[in-house]
């Protein structure tokens, strides 16, 4: 009876200690109690070495009292290789990392130190049995390894918890988590208020107050009436087949332009960022061509391409290509040199560095570039479709301007805005799925 009470007391102490740590700090009481049951207390005298590099990465350590010195192998590329760890600090996490079975640091007790040791494999098994919470703990580990131990993100990639549910969770549930955070935040409501204010101001300024410079504009009710009319005065509404034809043609053109801009722009940008010689040859010309407005390219595009459609796609592609290439180049240039050095130290060849460091490292910039690129492609469309002579939302806007059909101009603009917003969101979602690690980081920091 007494022994059980003592055991319970020790378990409570261990759970309380775990609660103080970064990885376990947000875990539920039940999970903490289960982890505490895995913990084994240990004592070390001052000057005792707890482990060295190449020792097997078997246990995770949590400091209960005292102080240890944690020195990371210089090859790791941590910004601060030496760290003093006190109560609540966690070390010995190497076994949690992808492909790491041996220690990567030397840890020495600086004074008499008490720790809890938790077997890594047992912990992984336990966390796998509670995938949702388990994943969260693992993410907290990632966060701690990167922030507190300044280990490059490339190395701080933890093992995945086993089981299909976990896999599912790493994508769908994180998206849901972000969605729930978004719904709980004031952002969606502010967004609706923003739209309401915009539409309200449009209505009041044009139709009620008739403000100078606004009263000549088409009013909200005129535009909405035309848009929803089965028999529109100027021939274009939600009820006309032509409306959807314009949308589809524009989407198809932008898709082609965006695809080309992505393939060529990313390749070109990677080369610009990766090869100094290539950049020196090409970048001045690239920078000279980049500011030229799309309209200026119209006559040349007509002459350059045999098919009219090719000229339209080229014009929509051009600005997108520049945005993608430039962002990709900046993405490559933004990669911390220490990551490349760390990969070199770990024996990676040039191709592996490119595949595992440069490409993933540049991805956030590439996807930012792609989001800009798809938007740019849409707003190049009005100029591009001047050439088309038949269909497209840009064509609708341009023709309506020449024919002074104000409501149709606004219908074309709003439709282009909505379709552009949706395609931009699709690019963002694709980016999130390709950069889950970043989504998780953002989700954990509630962004």
């Amino acid at each position, binding site marked *: 009876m007494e022994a059980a009470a003592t055991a319970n007391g020790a378990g409570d102490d261990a759970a309380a200690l775990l609660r103080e740590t970064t990885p376990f700090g947000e875990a539920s009481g039940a999970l903490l109690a289960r982890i505490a049951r895995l913990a084994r207390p240990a004592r070390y005298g001052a000057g005792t070495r707890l482990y060295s590099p190449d020792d097997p990465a078997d246990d995770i350590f949590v400091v209960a009292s005292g102080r240890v010195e944690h020195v990371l192998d210089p090859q790791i590329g941590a910004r601060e290789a030496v760290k003093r760890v006190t109560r609540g600090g966690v070390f010995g996490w190497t076994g949690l990392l992808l492909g790491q079975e041996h220690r990567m640091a030397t840890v020495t007790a600086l004074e008499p130190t008490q720790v809890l040791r938790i077997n890594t494999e047992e912990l992984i098994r336990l966390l796998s049995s509670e995938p949702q919470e388990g994943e969260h703990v693992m993410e907290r580990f990632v966060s701690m390894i990167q922030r507190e131990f300044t280990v490059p993100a490339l190395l701080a990639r933890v093992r995945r918890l086993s089981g299909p549910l976990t896999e599912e969770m790493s994508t769908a549930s994180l998206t849901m988590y972000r969605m729930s955070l978004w719904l709980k935040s004031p952002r969606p409501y502010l967004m609706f208020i923003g739209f309401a204010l915009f539409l309200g101001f449009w209505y009041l300024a044009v139709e009620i*107050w008739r*403000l100078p410079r606004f009263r000549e504009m088409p009013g909200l009710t*005129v535009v909405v009436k035309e848009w929803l009319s089965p028999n529109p005065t100027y021939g274009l509404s939600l009820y006309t087949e032509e409306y959807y034809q314009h949308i589809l043609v524009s989407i198809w053109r932008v898709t082609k332009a965006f695809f080309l801009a992505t393939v060529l722009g990313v390749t070109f940008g990677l080369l610009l960022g990766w090869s100094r010689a290539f950049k020196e040859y090409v970048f001045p010309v690239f920078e000279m061509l980049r500011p030229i407005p799309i309209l200026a390219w119209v006559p040349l595009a007509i002459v350059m391409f045999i098919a009219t459609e090719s000229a339209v796609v080229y014009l929509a592609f051009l600005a997108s290509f520049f945005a993608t290439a430039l962002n990709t180049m900046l993405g490559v240039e933004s990669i911390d040199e220490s990551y490349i050095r760390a990969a070199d130290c770990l024996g990676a060849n040039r191709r592996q560095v490119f595949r595992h460091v440069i490409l993933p490292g540049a991805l956030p910039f590439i996807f930012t570039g792609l989001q800009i690129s798809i938007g740019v492609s849409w707003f190049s469309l009005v100029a591009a479709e001047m050439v088309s002579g038949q269909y497209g939302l840009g064509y609708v806007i341009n023709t309506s301007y*020449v024919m002074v059909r104000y409501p149709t101009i606004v219908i074309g603009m709003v439709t282009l805005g909505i379709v552009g917003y949706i395609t931009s969101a699709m690019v963002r979602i694709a980016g999130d799925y390709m950069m889950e690690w970043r989504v998780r980081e953002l989700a954990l920091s509630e962004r």
Partner: protein
Amino acid sequence: MNRRHFTLAAVAALFACAASSSQAADIDYGKPGTPVKLVVGYQPYYTQSWSGVVMRGKKFYEKYLPKGSDIEFQIGLQGAIIVNNMLAGKQNIGYMGDMPSIVSTTKTEVADVRLVANLGLAYDQCNAFLVRNDAPQFKNDQEAIRWLAGKTVAVPKGSCTDRFAQATFKRFNIQPKEYLNQNIEVITSNFRAGKLDAAVMWQPTTSRLVDEGLARLIATGKSVQENDGGFLAMRADLIKQRPDIVKAWLQAELDAQLFIADPKNASEVIKMAKEQTTGFSEKVLWNSLYGRYPDSAGGGDMRNMMHYTFTPEARELINRAAAFLYSIKSINTEKIRPEAIESKWTEEILKERGLKAPIAEIKALPAAQAPK
């Protein structure tokens, strides 16, 4: 200023703005007899409205407007720009082709614009069919028009060229393979790239394309008896507040039309047009208004008939063009409202000066008189 005060100030400013604007009325042109400030939109790139070029160059209006009046001319590359500016109150008087003139009168929910004079009626100022230079040689305009069946044809949609092209297709019962809506700059580039079989263009671009060897003229409105025209438009608030200015301007306009129609003035008119445009040689400009095209391509002796007022022919053109614009859903009415045509001013002036419409005719001149 804290955030709450700032918000209150912003709301107050908005309401103050709203209150002041709700009292704002039409543009204030001053009292009759006082100097006036006018902004005139005109199209030096459309030959039929070149009385605007002459007005700017010769300043005929100075003789009739109150001393101290300030006149600013603004170039519109196409009629739609002038329509937009007039509706927005940025231009008060506009020289335009028939289609934009008609459109401008139908946007009463934005501003009331009215037509006050005719700038001329013709068959080939706007209505000119061009084909690529390597098209077959045709015996005459009729054969050339039939060749257009199944070809790629471009026009600036909603313009007089569109009306003419569609009327021609209907009359000959032919269908092009593609009927594209392109502006004149794109059409020019497409001719250069050899992508178009044919297009309808207005002068002086027609003459330039022919002169540069990019295209050939094959038919005009004369081939199918389809005319074109230009009109002078004014904002109704100007007409209402300053009848003296309306009359003065139209007196000067009459002088300009008579000047332009006098063959002795041809070279001076061309020099003024050259000064007010870019990219056109004097020869091209001369051909566009005074040149003589072959009869087999729809050419004729008459290049522009200066009706000045709203003769039955001018009214017939307006009705036909309005019906066309309505059919292509460019305007919301099949007929323009009767008050949109203010013919009393020109009729009164013609009576005072003992003239009858048409007041003059621009005749094609011998090629020997063309500038080198």
